[in-house]
């Protein structure tokens, strides 16, 4: 029960937290189309901008003649990489910039087909921009592309990043091997124990390969911005003010980019859209202030959907060697992988720093080696993830499955055997959260394990099942700065936003309502870009860690309200022009001290006799503000608290495979999760559905395809790149458990996307038909794996 550290201890009774079907604070704006995203903004007298986008995957612009384009009616400005404006203009990083020289914001190198390069055209409308781009006379030097990751590994391979040595910064999260980079390859290594010795002594060894597919950006809304400059007579800082919409939450980065005081930078919109592990901004979101300054008019720049296929979950080939005992206890893990490093500027959290948070984090095994070769390619910007990414946990999931197959055991039993205890890798006890998840999971799924190829359904198809687990992580990447204002019986919760779809602000509001004895609807979320509080820092972190901080803030506010109520009962304030009309008669709280009072159901009540009460808005007429800054105690991942295990989740899959047609049908998905405490069940369900469906998508449907000779993307559109629809998604059974063992509000942990995976369906297919099919397991690949085509 770690949450006892909090000001409120471990609350037992909940009135608001955990209640389903409370609408989100901005849901009505989203559902009705009133919400404006960056791409929606249209302002008077607005110009449009478009980048030259490279038709080549690896090329250099030698020269550009813009004369024909400039002569086109409606063209207002053309900027090239040689323009003075770009000499001092540098990209702002999502996190601390690596040391050393950095790449020019816009240069003449194209490292991906479709990437912005060399030229920007500004015109009266987008059609004129397109025409002006067609009229450019561009001289290219074209280099051979690297779009096959494995071929890119070859020392003789063409270089994917010709100028790499100049600007390539080290991934601040990765443990890179300290040696000069060779060709396209960077190496990363993490070692624990003596892997070679442990493998030599192992009673059994399995070797297997996993191919993690590259699948496309999860951003639904094409990024865009519109910006203009204005003179604000009320600005506190001298100089022109900048208004930008579409760079949501990144006001500080924009102000730094343009060297404008942040106080003079306006960014009112709060709707960011989906940004699932796709952080930072696109160029279209950063460039508009520059173009607006040059032209003296508002400028809009928007990506198309095709442009937005530029960011991918990275392709990764994993070659695994696992030693284990005859009982199934893993004693050695040798994990070698080749990962697609993509183009410069990938998002590379935890490249190989996975012992701190990955599948091996949960295991008793003390001998682990992870060695990764990261290959620069011209395929796109990559989410270059280590095993910490939920998708990559399946190296562990697969080990457990294969050991079970080899020993004729249930993989759930193998997982239990290998999971270490709550406190450390050496802790031999079982994890209570894991035990209850498995118990409920078996019931939910009528779990009855069979070896591969052993179960045929009445319709002749083969049945397969799989299971995986993950942790519900204790997060606290960041501190949160919270502020609450009591105002005439209501609570105002100022927040900067943004709205990202994780319902974090709602969880915060529910906690506030819970602590202050008021209704959820009486917590008014006031969005203001100038505020500091933003419940964002990763999905789980933003939701649960910020909710812990908000709980502390609410506790402070409650104390202040009760003190005000006690004071005002003794010292009635004189009538005011504004504020509620007080009821006639004496104040029933007169004579009571703050510590004798409580807040219940919208009233200030006397603890020992709650029938003595006064409506909150009448009991305290003062405007009261409380603030709190901090983060929840004992966060694991970010604070290095070691290999503790507390809140877990499990997922299950059943498939039917038709060996005649190669078709795979997911019969059922199951999720039994213990997020410690369910704060907002409706959004928790939805979060789980989302990861299950995009996991389904990448295992059965989705695949980015490049032409190997030209490096051109062949299916960067929503027709050819197949996402699941309502008719594709299977039924999901979900069950939530509450062990209260997390570190955030009321013992909650995050769940985020920890159920996301690339191999749960693939393993179930293997369990059905006894062969491996790399994702996506399309019918042709299934038939090929079966040797039928």
């Amino acid at each position, binding site marked *: 029960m770690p949450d006892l550290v909090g000001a409120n201890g471990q609350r037992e009774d909940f009135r608001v937290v955990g209640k389903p*079907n*409370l*609408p*989100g*604070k*901005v*849901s*009505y*704006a*989203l*559902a*009705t*189309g*009133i*919400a*404006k*995203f960056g*791409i*929606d903004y*249209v302002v008077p007298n607005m110009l449009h901008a478009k980048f030259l986008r490279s038709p080549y995957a690896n090329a250099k612009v030698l020269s550009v003649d813009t004369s024909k384009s400039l002569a086109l*009616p*409606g063209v207002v400005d053309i900027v090239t990489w040689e323009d003075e404006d770009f000499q001092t203009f540098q990209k702002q990083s999502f996190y601390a910039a690596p040391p050393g020289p950095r790449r020019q914001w816009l240069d003449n190198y194209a490292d991906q087909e479709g990437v912005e390069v060399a030229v920007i055209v500004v015109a*009266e*409308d987008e*059609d004129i921009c397109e025409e002006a781009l067609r009229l450019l006379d561009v001289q290219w030097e074209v280099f051979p592309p690297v779009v096959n990751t494995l071929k890119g590994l070859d020392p003789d391979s063409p270089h994917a990043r010709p100028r790499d040595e100049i600007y390539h910064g080290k991934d601040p999260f990765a443990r890179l091997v300290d040696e000069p980079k060779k060709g396209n390859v960077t190496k990363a290594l993490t070692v624990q124990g003596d892997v070679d010795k442990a493998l030599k002594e192992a009673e059994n060894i399995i070797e297997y390969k996993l191919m993690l597919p590259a699948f496309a950006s999860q951003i*639904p*809304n*094409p990024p865009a911005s519109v910006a203009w400059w204005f003179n604000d007579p009320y600005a506190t800082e001298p100089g022109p003010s900048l208004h930008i919409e579409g760079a949501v939450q990144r006001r500080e980065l924009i102000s730094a980019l343009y060297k404008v005081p942040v106080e003079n930078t306006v960014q009112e919109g709060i*709707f*960011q*859209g*989906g*940004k699932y592990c796709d952080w930072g901004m696109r160029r279209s979101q950063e460039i508009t202030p520059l173009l607006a300054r040059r032209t003296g008019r508002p400028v809009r720049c*928007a990506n*198309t*959907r095709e442009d937005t296929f530029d960011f991918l979950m990275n392709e990764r080939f994993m070659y695994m060697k696992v030693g284990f005992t005859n009982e199934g206890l893993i004693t050695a893990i040798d994990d070698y992988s080749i990962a697609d490093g993509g183009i410069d500027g990938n998002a590379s959290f935890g490249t190989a720093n996975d012992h701190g948070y990955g599948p091996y984090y949960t295991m008793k095994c003390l001998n682990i080696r992870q060695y990764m070769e990261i290959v620069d390619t011209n395929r796109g910007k990559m989410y270059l993830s280590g095993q910490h990414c939920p998708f990559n946990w399946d190296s562990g999931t697969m080990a457990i499955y294969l050991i079970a197959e080899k020993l004729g055991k249930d993989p759930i039993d193998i997982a239990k055997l290998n999971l270490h205890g709550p406190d450390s890798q050496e802790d031999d006890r079982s994890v209570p959260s894991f035990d209850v998840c498995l118990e409920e999971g078996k019931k939910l799924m009528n779990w009855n394990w069979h070896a591969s190829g052993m179960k045929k359904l009445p319709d002749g198809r083969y049945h397969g099942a799989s299971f995986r687990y993950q942790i519900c992580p204790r997060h606290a990447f960041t501190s949160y700065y919270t502020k609450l204002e009591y105002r005439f019986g209501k609570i105002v919760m100022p927040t900067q936003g943004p*709205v*990202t*779809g994780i*319902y974090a602000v709602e969880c915060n509001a529910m906690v506030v309502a819970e602590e202050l004895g008021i209704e959820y609807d009486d917590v*008014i*979320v006031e969005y203001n870009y100038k505020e500091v509080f933003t419940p964002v820092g990763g999905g789980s972190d933003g939701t649960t860690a910020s909710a812990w901080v908000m709980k502390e803030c609410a506790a402070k506010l409650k104390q202040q309200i009760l003190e005000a109520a006690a004071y005002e009962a003794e010292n009635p304030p004189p009538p005011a022009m504004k504020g509620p009309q007080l009821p006639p008669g004496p104040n029933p709280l007169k004579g009571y001290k703050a510590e004798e009072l409580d807040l219940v159901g919208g009233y200030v009540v006397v603890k020992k006799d709650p029938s003595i009460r006064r409506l909150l808005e009448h009991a305290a007429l003062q405007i009261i503000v409380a603030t709190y800054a901090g983060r929840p105690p004992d966060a694991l991942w970010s604070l290095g608290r070691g290999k503790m295990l507390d809140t877990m989740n499990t997922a299950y899959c059943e498939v039917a495979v038709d060996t005649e047609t190669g078709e795979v049908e997911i019969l059922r998905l199951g999720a039994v999760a213990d997020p410690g405490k369910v704060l907002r069940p*409706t*959004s928790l*369900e*939805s979060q789980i*559905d*989302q990861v299950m*469906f*995009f996991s389904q998508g990448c295992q059965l449907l989705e695949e980015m395809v490049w032409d190997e000779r030209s490096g051109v993307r062949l299916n960067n*559109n*929503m*027709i050819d790149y197949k*996402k*699941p*629809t*309502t*008719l594709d*998604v299977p039924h*999901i059974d979900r069950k939530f458990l509450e062990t209260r063992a997390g570190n955030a509000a009321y013992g909650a942990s995050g769940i985020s996307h920890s159920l996301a995976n690339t191999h749960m369906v693939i393993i179930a297919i293997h369990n059905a038909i006894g062969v491996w099919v790399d994702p996506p397991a399309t019918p042709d690949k299934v038939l090929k794996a079966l040797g039928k085509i």
Partner: protein
Amino acid sequence: MYTQESTSAAASSLIDALPDKIDVFRCPICSAVTANYDSLRRHYDECHVAEIPPIMVTLRLNGRQTEVLAPPNWTLQRTLQFKLGLTGAKHMCDKGVCGSCTVIMDGRAVLACTTLVVECQGKDIQTVEGIAADAKWKPLVDAYCRWDAMQCGYCTPGFLVSAKALLDKNPNPTEEDCREALSGNICICGTYPRHSTAILEAALKIAEDNQAKGAQR
């Protein structure tokens, strides 16, 4: 605060702001102002022979007769956003495959990103703003919000319009009917099961409201 009342009122304001008539016929190339549409066309014949003049389209948009001037290659989605101030029909795939720009035209759910505005002459078109402003559909919007039939919310208006088009034709849909009707809408946040739940709840509420109104009469 975004409430049902405030968003419905905002949608009504957007609809009220739609132009009944075009007041100024300005040449988009040289900014010359002409007296009417015919003179604008003549101006093109005289001054911009190689260019194609904008077309004038009259449509019934969310119950209002509306005139708009737009280039003939413009889609309905682009016209709604850039000429008429309605951004509920979202630009997403631009290929007629994701449903985020869905509107109802003469009773049918159609995709505004692959419908040219020139095809909309004289058509009756309803966008999500029209649904939001119509009290009759409050139960549908309420149900969407109660059930979190949205996460990031970008595709949600398209789903809501498809849902309304379904309920127009079939006031008592099954879950299968809902899945079928929404199969042209893609949600990358994976909210699919929540839409059916919301629509089924809304259908019941709308039926109850209708019954109550019938009883009052």
